[in-house]
């Protein structure tokens, strides 16, 4: 046995912030917009903007060379941009969903469109970022050429949605108060969804196996990502829980952002919906509900026999997800 355990864990802990080369192209407040350097012949078409969730860091999209959705997309010749929302602090507590969607996300889109002299781009929203992408597309349909949602909740009241049940009777305004919501509190909540697997079994899996350097490094990078949880801007968090989890406004066609109605039924652009069949955070039914909302859009749903995190980093996801996205875009 080589010394593959603690030293590999320590080494992996030091630098998990993404593996592909990228450059900062725009920033506003704590937001950073990155453009990835190409690694293959350009496939043509509009650039692809990845909109990740607020609740974890976006480097999960590019964790390591053999576990990188972004690398797969670059290898397919796509021109990839990524939003990094940053770490909100006390000064961001009044940042609202309208700020995130109509200022930050929309600002990134405008910046990319100006750079490429285009009128529309491709949008890939992941998890909560998928909800933001749907909202943006609903508000600015002419700015989005193709919309891709990945493990994205749309119907927040499906029977398997444990998070939704837990927050249904919580006074979210009192819970948030006028502050931010700590990332540690959210981690506690997520671990409570499957406490035996997430706080016991996965460590036994790691420690009881014969230590292998690559395995340990991968485990520690994922572990770092899981617990590298930014605090949530209080106002946006309060709105997200109230409007989506408690009132299910997107599903009920009652959502307004910055005073403008989000009309998914008027969306007529091509939509690809990527669903994890074993997703415990976003049940498949919560995602697949999108089909009934997007009017006569050119809608495609692809289901993968994977969990929420497996959709980003499993070996199977590396083989199948980027290829599915690139293939779908190539035909549109």
């Amino acid at each position, binding site marked *: 046995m080589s010394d593959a355990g603690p030293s590999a864990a320590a080494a992996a802990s030091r630098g998990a912030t993404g593996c592909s080369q990228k450059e900062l192209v725009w920033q506003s407040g704590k937001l950073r917009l990155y453009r990835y350097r190409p690694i293959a012949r350009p496939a043509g078409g509009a650039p692809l903007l990845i909109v990740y969730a607020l609740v974890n860091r976006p480097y999960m999209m590019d964790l390591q060379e053999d576990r990188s959705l972004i690398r797969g997309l670059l290898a397919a010749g796509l021109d990839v941009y990524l939003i990094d929302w940053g770490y909100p602090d006390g000064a961001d507590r009044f940042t609202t969903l309208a700020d995130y969607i109509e200022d930050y996300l929309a600002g990134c889109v405008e910046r990319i469109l100006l750079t490429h002299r285009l*009128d529309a781009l491709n949008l890939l929203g992941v998890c909560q970022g998928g909800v933001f992408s749907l909202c943006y597309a609903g508000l600015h349909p002419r700015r989005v050429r193709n919309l891709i949602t990945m493990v994205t909740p749309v119907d927040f009241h499906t029977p398997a949605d444990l998070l939704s049940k837990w927050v249904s009777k*919580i006074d979210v305004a009192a819970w948030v108060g006028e502050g931010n919501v700590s990332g540690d509190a959210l981690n506690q909540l997520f671990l409570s969804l499957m406490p035996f697997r997430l*706080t016991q079994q996965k460590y*036994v899996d790691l420690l009881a196996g014969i230590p292998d350097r690559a395995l340990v490094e991968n485990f520690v990078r994922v572990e770092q990502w899981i617990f590298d949880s930014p605090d949530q801007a209080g106002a946006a968090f309060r709105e997200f829980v109230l409007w989506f989890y408690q009132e299910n406004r997107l599903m009920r066609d009652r959502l307004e952002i910055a005073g403008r109605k989000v009309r998914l039924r008027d969306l007529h652009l091509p939509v690809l919906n990527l669903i994890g069949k074993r997703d415990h955070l976003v049940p498949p039914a919560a995602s697949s509900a999108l089909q009934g909302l997007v009017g006569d859009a050119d809608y495609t749903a692809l289901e993968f026999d994977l969990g929420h995190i497996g959709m980003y980093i499993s070996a199977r996801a590396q083989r199948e997800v980027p290829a599915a996205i690139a293939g779908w875009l190539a035909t*549109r």
Partner: protein
Amino acid sequence: MADDLWRQWQAFAAVWAPGAPGVPGRPPGDGGFGFAPFIDAGERFKAAAQSLLDGAAGGPAAATQAAQNFSDFLRDEFAGARPPWNAGFGPGIGAGAPDSSWSEWPALGPMREHQLRWQRMSEAARRIDDAQRRLQRLWSDALRQAAADFAARLQPPPSGAADAEALRKLYDTWIDCAEDAYARIAHSEAFCNAQADLVNAGSQWRQELQAGIEHWAKLLDLPTRSEINTLALRLKSIEEQLRAATAAARTATPAAPAAAPAARAAARAAASGPKARPKPRVAPRKQSPARRRNARRKAKR
């Protein structure tokens, strides 16, 4: 220290894979350091599993009793492994509340407002305690159900040596049973109500605590969170007005690069950020919706 950790890791692996080559014994005197608690738990699990397997060879009655004993062992082992129910307010949730006897006194005189606040805190702390007890009870129910399911799955009990494969199979089966039982409880109305009561009471407790701290801060002429929040809101409002004015100025310009609905974002895109570059003089090409649809159809063909 790294060497000690490494030896502990190997010792843990040895519990699960006895007889594997190159696996040393447990480092001496490791106490509660590093992986030591995992090793202790692993050794207890292995000993209990061995009793189960031995019991399986002793006839039907002994086997059933062994399965029951093993299930009870697991239930006890995991009793303390519950999630930390503090609603994100930290382990001190509910602490610092005055004695509940305050709630009996009439709130009169110059201390009236403080007394009312303490009474509300005390009441919130009582509700927190109640909700935590209910959650603990539900956790115990889940473990009891898991143990029963596990014992049922052990019929007929396995027999043979406690090798790595047998240990892992038993452990994984237990985790499956525990997770299934917990999921049933966690989806129940009783659990959701207890969670909500805990969070809501915790919110009130924190709100009263903040109010008390702000009161003392004002007496000492220290800045309070409320004052900072007021300033932050004013600043945000000014920023929004500035962006709106910038956007309005841009849309009034004939060569405005952004369409009206996106003016707010365009103002931000153009105005902010240290990577400011010369503004492009060419407006993005616009197409009518019909023209775009046609272009898309054409591309599909």
